[in-house]
C-alpha cells in the first residue's frame, strides 16, 4: 500500500526527482572544480616563491662567509712608528704605511724575492686593500704590538674570495681570468698550510658602502632603514589613528567626509615615486631639510604609509560591535571615554597589524628615495637622522648594478637580510593578532 503510494508519487513527478539528482552532481562537480582551481593557484604561487627563494638563497648564502688569509705580520717599528714616539703620536700611528707591513708579511710567507716587483705586486693583490684600517685598529688597541710579530687574519681580495667560492670559471685561458696561474698556485700553498679559510663574515653586517666588495656591508643601510622606520612609526601611527578615530566615531556622515574617504583610498594606490617628487619639492626644496637624510626619507614614507594605516584602523574600529559602544554610553561614559576606554583597546590588535604591514611595505621602498638623494654611496654611519644615509632596498639596487662578480652574492645576501626583516615584522603582526584578537 505504501509502496504503491510511493511508486505512484514517483510516477506523478518523475522529472522532479531526476532534476534534483542532476543538480547535486553538478554542484559537487562545481565545488571540486573550484577546489582544484584554488590548489592550482596556490601551487603556482608556491612554485614562484620557491624559485625566488632558491635563486636568492643559493646565490646569497655565500655572502655571509668571507675568505680570509692568515698572515704573520711584523709590526715593524720603523714603519708603524717612524718617529719612535713610543706610541704617543696617535696621528702618525693612524697614518702609517700599514699596507707595507702586509706586503712584507705575504712576501716572506710565500717566499718571494722582494726585488721581483711583478711577483710582489701579484702576491699583494691576493689580500684586500682595506687592511689599513684593520691593522691600525690592532696597533691603536694595543700599543705594545709595535715591534712584535702577530698572526692576523686578513680579508682576501674580492677576486680571491669569488674564486674560492667557485664564482669564476678558472678553466678559461689565463689572460681572461682575474687570477693568474702563479696566484692560484700561491693560494693552493696557503690552503695546504691551513692559512686560507672561509670565515663568518661579520663585516657584512657592520660595514657601510664600499667600492671593495670584501669590505662592503649593509650596516649603514640597516641603520638608515631603522631611522626611517622609527620616524614612520612615530609619525604615522598617532596621526593615522587619530584621523581614523575622528572619521569613524565623531565625524558626521556627509559629502565632505565621503570626499575625504575617497581621497584616502585613492592615496593608498598612488605610485610611491609620486611621494618622492612631493618630498623633494616640499621637504628638501621647501623646508630646506638636508638631501640624502633619513629624516626626509622617513617623512616621505610616512606620507606613503598613512593611508594604509588609516584604512586598516578604520576597518578595525568598524569591527568592534556597536553593543560595546551602546553599553558604555548607557552606563554614562562620555563619547571620548567610550572610544579610549573600550573601542580603541579592542581595535588595537587590528591597528597594530595594519601598522606593521604598512611599515613592512615602507621598508621595501626604493622609488621615493631616489629623488630625495638616498640612492647613494654612503660609507659613514649616519650620526643622526639628519646625516646622509641609505636604506636596505637601495643598497640592493646599488650592488645589483656593480660590475664586480663579488657583488652578485652580496646583492642576494642583502636581499636575504631584507627578507629576514620583513618576515620578522610580519610574524610579529601575526603573533599580535593571534594573542590579542577578540572574536564575537
Amino acid at each position, binding site marked *: 500500500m505504501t509502496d504503491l503510494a510511493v511508486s505512484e508519487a514517483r510516477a506523478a513527478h518523475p522529472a522532479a526527482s531526476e532534476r534534483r539528482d542532476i543538480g547535486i552532481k553538478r554542484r559537487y562537480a562545481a565545488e571540486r572544480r573550484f577546489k582544484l582551481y584554488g590548489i592550482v593557484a596556490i601551487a603556482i604561487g608556491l612554485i614562484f616563491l620557491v624559485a625566488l627563494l632558491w635563486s636568492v638563497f643559493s646565490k646569497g648564502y655565500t655572502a655571509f662567509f668571507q675568505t680570509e688569509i692568515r698572515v704573520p705580520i711584523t709590526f715593524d717599528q720603523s714603519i708603524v712608528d717612524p718617529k719612535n714616539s713610543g706610541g704617543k703620536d696617535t696621528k702618525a700611528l693612524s697614518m702609517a704605511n700599514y699596507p707595507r707591513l702586509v706586503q712584507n708579511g705575504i712576501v716572506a710567507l710565500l717566499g718571494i724575492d722582494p726585488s721581483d716587483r711583478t711577483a710582489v705586486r701579484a702576491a699583494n693583490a691576493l689580500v684586500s686593500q682595506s687592511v689599513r684600517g684593520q691593522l691600525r685598529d690592532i696597533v691603536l688597541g694595543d700599543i705594545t704590538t709595535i715591534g712584535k710579530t702577530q698572526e692576523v687574519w686578513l680579508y682576501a681580495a674580492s677576486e680571491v674570495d669569488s674564486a674560492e667560492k667557485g664564482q669564476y670559471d678558472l678553466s678559461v685561458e689565463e689572460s*681572461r681570468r682575474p687570477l693568474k696561474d702563479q696566484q692560484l698556485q700561491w693560494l693552493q700553498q696557503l690552503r695546504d698550510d691551513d692559512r686560507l679559510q672561509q670565515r663568518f663574515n661579520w663585516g657584512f653586517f657592520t660595514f657601510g658602502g664600499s*667600492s671593495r666588495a670584501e669590505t662592503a656591508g649593509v650596516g649603514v643601510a640597516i641603520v638608515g632603514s631603522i631611522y626611517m622606520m622609527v620616524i614612520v612609526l*612615530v609619525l604615522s601611527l598617532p596621526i593615522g589613528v587619530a584621523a581614523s578615530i575622528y572619521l569613524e566615531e565623531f565625524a558626521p556622515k556627509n559629502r565632505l567626509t565621503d570626499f575625504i574617504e575617497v581621497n584616502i583610498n585613492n592615496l593608498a594606490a598612488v605610485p610611491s615615486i609620486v611621494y618622492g617628487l612631493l618630498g623633494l619639492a616640499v621637504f628638501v626644496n621647501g623646508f*630646506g631639510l638636508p638631501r640624502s637624510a633619513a629624516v626626509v626619507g622617513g617623512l616621505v614614507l610616512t606620507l606613503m604609509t598613512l593611508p594604509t594605516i588609516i584604512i586598516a584602523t578604520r576597518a578595525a574600529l568598524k569591527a568592534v560591535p556597536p553593543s560595546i559602544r551602546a553599553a558604555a554610553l548607557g552606563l554614562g561614559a562620555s563619547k571620548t571615554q567610550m572610544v579610549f576606554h573600550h573601542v*580603541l583597546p579592542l581595535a*588595537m*590588535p587590528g591597528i597594530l597589524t595594519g601598522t606593521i604591514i604598512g611599515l613592512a611595505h615602507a621598508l621595501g621602498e626604493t622609488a621615493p628615495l631616489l629623488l630625495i638623494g638616498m640612492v*647613494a654611496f654612503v660609507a659613514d654611519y649616519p650620526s643622526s637622522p639628519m*646625516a646622509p644615509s641609505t636604506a636596505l632596498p637601495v643598497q640592493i639596487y646599488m650592488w645589483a648594478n656593480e660590475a664586480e662578480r663579488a657583488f652578485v652574492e652580496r646583492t642576494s645576501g642583502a636581499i636575504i637580510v631584507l627578507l629576514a626583516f620583513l618576515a620578522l615584522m610580519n610574524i610579529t603582526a601575526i603573533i599580535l593578532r593571534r594573542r590579542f584578537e577578540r572574536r564575537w
Partner: protein
Amino acid sequence: MSISKLVAGLTLGTALTIAAQAHAQSADPIQIAGSSTVLPYAQIVAENFHEASPDFPTPVVESGGSSAGLKQFCQGVGPDQIDIANASRPIKESEVETCKKNGVTDIQEVKFGYDGIVFATDAGGPDFKLTPAIVFKALGAKSVVDGKVVDNPAKTWADVDASLPAWNIAAYIPGEKHGTREVFAEKLLAAGCEETGAKEAFAKSGMDEKAAAAQCMQVRKDGAAAEIDGDYTETLARIDANKQGVGVFGLAFYEQNQDKLKVATINDVVPSVETISSGKYPVSRPLFFYVKKAHVGVVPGLSEYVDFFLSEQMIGNDGPLAEYGLVPAPDAEREEFRQAFSAGKTM
C-alpha cells in the same frame, strides 16, 4: 589597555632620542650626484679620500645618470644643494643656461680620464672583427641596396661580412638615456655611414644634409637591436640568455667580467687601456665632473677632494681608477687637468 600604554611609551621614547640626536649633527659631507658610469670611480676616490684624510667625512655619491645629476646641480647654491655633478658627457649649453638662471654662475669643468666602449659576445663565441662600416650595415635603420634606400635587410652577421658567423643579428645597445649611446651613434654608426657611402645615397634620395646625418644615427627598430635602459649587468644577463647576442659594454665592465665575455676588435684593434689612451681604438669618450665654484672653500674638503681625485695616486697610470678600467689621459693632459682646476677656470 596595556598595549596602548606600551605603544605610547615606545613612541615617546623614540621621539625623544631622535630629537636629542638631531642636535649632535656632524660636519656635512661633500654631496655628489650624476652619471652611473662615473659612479664607481667616484666611489673609489671618495673611499680613499676619507682614508687619506680622516678629518673629512666620506663624500656621499648619488647615482641616477648624467642628466639627472646636472639637473640637480643646477638647482642652486646653498648647503642643501649638491657640490659636484658627475657626467659621462660634456655639459650642454641649455644646462649652463638653467644653472645661470638659478644662481649657479661659476662652474668648473674637470675632465679626469677616458672610458672605452666595447662590443663583446659570450666567452664561447668565435672571433668578432668589427669595423664602423660593419656595425652600420648590421644595425643602421636604413641601408642602400643598388642605389636605393631600403629598410636594413641584413638578417645575420654573415650577411654583413663573410668573416662573421651566421648568427642572427641580436645586439644589445644602450638606450637613449645613456651617455654611452651618443658615443656609439657618433663614433660607429655615423662613421660607418660615411665610410660605406650611405650618407651620400641618403642625401641623393632627397634628404637634406641634416636629415641624412640624423638618418645615419638611427638604429633599426625591427627587433635586431634591443635597447637596454638598465645597466651593463642587464646587458650581461641578456648575453647569458642568448649566447649568440652581441652587447655593448664599458671597458671597465668588460675587464671585470672577462671570463664571461669575449671582446670584439674594431678596425683590428683590441680595446684595452693602452690602445684607447694611444687613440688607436676609436670608440672612447671623456669623463667629467662639474664643481660649483661657489661651494669651494665653503664646503669642507671640497677642493681637497678634487685635488685628491686629480692626483697621480688616483688618476695616474697605476692608480686604482686605471685598475678598475678607467683609461688614463696622457701624462701631459693629466697635468693640464690639474692646472685648469687650481687656476679656478670657470665656464
